[in-house]
């Protein structure tokens, strides 16, 4: 690894034979060189080749050590899903502690993480452990030990005012005998409560959930629609022992597919995934969709998860088995399947050593339309997305491109409305002629004053008011979705000043001032509220205003 003039490290090349101490040493180097924290993020995806062949505990040590480093060097936005994933579903104290520490590397505290921290308390309270991140593979007894619960509550303390909504939970943890936390952990809870109560920062309420684009993505992770069929070599066996090809099952109707394996030791992952799949099947039936949408669970472990095991596992969790609802193992082509879905999984010999939660919605040609990865998915949300596939499915020969085209037009319409209503209208309003003289000025500017042009007319004023109302309505919607009303208030004040002192009382400068306020409010409303993260700000702007262009190939 070479250090350049910028003191940045170059990307490391690790493989399955790289000793774990070497990887840990690299993490130590990154801690010294803060500019290289993104190199750690690149090591987090579960399918990274260097995780192959390592035991689960070794992977826990490595990933925990990496994640804890973010607490020191800063937590890049790209790493946030990995951190929240472990808090939400992890059951190992070392990793949970590491991710709690990692959150303290955020540039700005946010209340968004509170549900994940609370879930982590619930997950880890019976599995806590004594640990340290001072060095990799410490000797015992530890000289500077901590625990997962300690770190979680420390993070609450760090959040300060941003954790106000967690105060009632923290008091409950502290006061109730139901939670038999140790004295040091209770002391940490008290410190957190004090820190939150004494923090006088004003916090504007943020959206209460992690943005959906972090949880759900559209389409396949890999560029798709090649000419050759990627599924030809994938063959399945179902829970009854029947054998068929990928295209024989995943066709004609959209499908919801989850991945799991029977030997998963984390009850928050595979066992819960299959249980929720059973709930989802029930919900489909209640909505009369059981004949329109298929469900399938595919095992990561086809060598061990034979048909009788799959059947028993599903039955024990309430799965409905039918022609349209199956649990599958590959008899051929697992690597192709893994490649197509870009599965977040790795193996030690034949056994899974690490995997993420993943659910896919396939179109009626078996191609990925939506990916729900890493976070616990919501049954209703999945069904809503699956229903989109039904609406896009106009006839039996519907093509994914047709469906995408319809959605692109819709997206374009929505985005155009947003652009127009929120940004262009204020511009129009600012430059709109509000009196005959202004009108003449415009006509002369555009060189058409020689024409018997349209005279200034009083009906233009209601049009002006209508345009401002549209703008105000758009600003209100934006404020509601961002939970941030400042720009809306600014726009509203601008309109009032324009109308009352500006037009009614005829104070000209009031009009100009009011319109400037209106325009400023509209501009600010278009900026997604994410403090201290200029790059995310830019990305979000791009996403909102240019993503529809990208999907059309620009």
């Amino acid at each position, binding site marked *: 690894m070479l250090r350049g003039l910028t003191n940045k490290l170059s990307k490391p090349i690790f493989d399955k034979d790289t000793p774990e101490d070497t990887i840990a040493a690299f993490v130590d180097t990154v801690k010294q060189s803060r500019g290289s924290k993104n190199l750690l993020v690149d090591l987090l995806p579960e399918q990274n080749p260097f995780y192959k062949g390592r035991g689960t*505990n070794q992977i*826990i040590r490595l990933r925990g050590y990496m994640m804890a480093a973010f607490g020191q060097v800063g937590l890049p936005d790209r790493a946030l899903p990995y951190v929240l994933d472990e808090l939400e579903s992890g059951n190992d104290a070392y990793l949970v502690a590491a991710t709690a520490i990692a959150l303290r590397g955020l540039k700005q505290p946010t209340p968004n993480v509170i549900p994940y921290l609370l879930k982590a308390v619930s997950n880890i309270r019976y599995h*806590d452990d004594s640990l340290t991140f001072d060095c990799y593979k410490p000797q015992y*007894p530890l000289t500077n030990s901590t625990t997962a619960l300690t770190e979680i509550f420390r993070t609450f303390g760090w959040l300060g005012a941003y954790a106000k909504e967690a105060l009632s939970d923290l008091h409950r943890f502290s006061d109730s005998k139901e939670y*038999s936390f*140790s004295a040091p952990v209770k002391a940490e809870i008290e410190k957190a409560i004090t820190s939150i109560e004494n923090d006088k920062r004003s916090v504007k309420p943020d959206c209460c959930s992690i943005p959906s684009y972090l949880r759900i993505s559209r389409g396949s992770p890999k560029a798709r629609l090649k000419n050759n069929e990627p599924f030809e070599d994938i063959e399945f066996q179902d829970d009854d022992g029947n054998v068929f090809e990928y295209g024989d099952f995943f066709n004609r109707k959209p499908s919801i597919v989850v991945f799991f394996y029977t*030997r998963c030791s984390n009850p928050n992952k595979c066992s819960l995934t299959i249980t929720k799949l059973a709930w989802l099947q029930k919900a489909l039936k209640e909505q009369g969709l059981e004949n329109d949408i298929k469900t399938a669970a595919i095992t990561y472990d086809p060598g*061990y998860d*034979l048909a009788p095991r799959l059947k028993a596992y599903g039955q024990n969790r309430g799965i409905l088995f039918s022609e349209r609802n199956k649990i599958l193992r590959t008899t051929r082509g697992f690597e192709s399947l893994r490649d197509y879905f870009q599965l977040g999984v790795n193996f*030690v010999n034949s056994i899974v050593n690490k995997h993420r939660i993943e659910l896919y919605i396939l179109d009626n040609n078996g191609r990925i339309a939506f990916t729900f990865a890493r976070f616990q998915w919501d049954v209703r949300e999945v069904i809503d997305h699956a229903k989109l596939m039904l609406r896009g499915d106009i006839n039996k020969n519907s093509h994914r491109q047709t469906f995408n085209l319809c959605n692109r037009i819709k997206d374009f319409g929505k985005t155009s409305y947003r652009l127009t209503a929120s940004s262009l209208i204020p511009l129009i309003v600012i430059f709109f002629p509000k009196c005959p003289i202004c009108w003449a000025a415009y006509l002369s500017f555009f060189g058409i004053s020689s024409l018997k042009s349209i005279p200034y007319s009083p009906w233009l004023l209601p049009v002006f008011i209508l345009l401002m109302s549209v703008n105000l309505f758009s600003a209100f919607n934006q404020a509601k979705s961002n939970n941030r009303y400042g720009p809306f208030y600014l726009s509203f004040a601008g309109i009032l000043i324009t109308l009352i002192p500006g037009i009614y009382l005829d104070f000209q400068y009031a009009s100009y001032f009011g319109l400037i306020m209106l325009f400023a409010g509209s501009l600010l409303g278009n900026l997604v509220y994410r403090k201290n993260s200029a790059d995310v700000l830019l990305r979000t702007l791009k996403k909102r205003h240019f993503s529809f262009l990208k999907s059309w190939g620009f």
Partner: protein
Amino acid sequence: MDVSEYRKEYLEKLEKEAKGRPSFRDFLDKVRSKKPGFESLAMADDNGERNDIDDAVEIIRDSSENVEIRIHALNGIVYEIAQREDLIDLMIELLRSEDEPEKLRIAAIGAMQLSEFISAIFPGKRPQYLEILRTIVDKEQSEELRQQAIGILAKSQDGYVQERLLKGLRNEAEALVPPEKAIQLLGYDIHSEYFPVLQDIVKNPPNLFAKNEAVRLLAADADSKNLLAEILQDKSEHRRVRQTSAIALQSLAPAEFERQAEQIIFDDDEYEDIRATCINVLEGSPTVSRSDRENLLTVADDSNRRRGLLEKVKELKETASSKELKKVAKRYISNHKK
């Protein structure tokens, strides 16, 4: 009998038995007086009054007291320990202190194990407890205490002890326990990276027990199917190991096991105990579906195959010299006659 009637009778029985037991105070008095027979004194089950418990704690803390008496006092209040944070702290203190007698510290581990099972307070103490167990693995002089600590940590799939055990399998100089024990302990966690090590041990075993344990654990590794089949077919292999591989193969790959087992049953040069094992395991295993068979028999072939197997087992029942083989053959016939 009516359920409520049965419940009433049972409660009366328990009360009667309780009356016959010594009270906790009697127990303590006998312990303190060191009267003969105190070693076999049954534990009182009323847990005593608060000051009785405190007396017992005093005995436990008293390092000048006879260690057997201290152990008895500890065992006498083991349920109370699980209810009180200060008593769990006392157990942790005993474990931490290398000056305390080994037997007392082993008794403390026993109390902590019970607390892990029944105590609502234990989760808060778990981090300290695990740290002490790891320290014992590293630094403890007492072999028995180390073994206990290693066993407890291995059962909780502790990464630290797994790494130490694996190192010991790769390098004898670093072994904490004999190889067969190390393999057994590693088997508590199938997600550890020991399968390549086990495959090496099967090929180059340090001893027979280690090989047998390795074969047993390879039942969890889909990549070891062929290795297990080879062991099962190898007549030069130790019969105990072959029997273990039969069970492992049946668990891992039932269709492959069925094929191998049938070959063995039909092989008149095969050992009778191996044939008995194969019939026994076939008997206990779920029927493999035809689609799972590698040779994909037709329905007719499958039926003929089963009939042929039944006839062979009948023949073995008559001609075998081994009682075990006759017994399993009889059971197989009885269940397949229908």
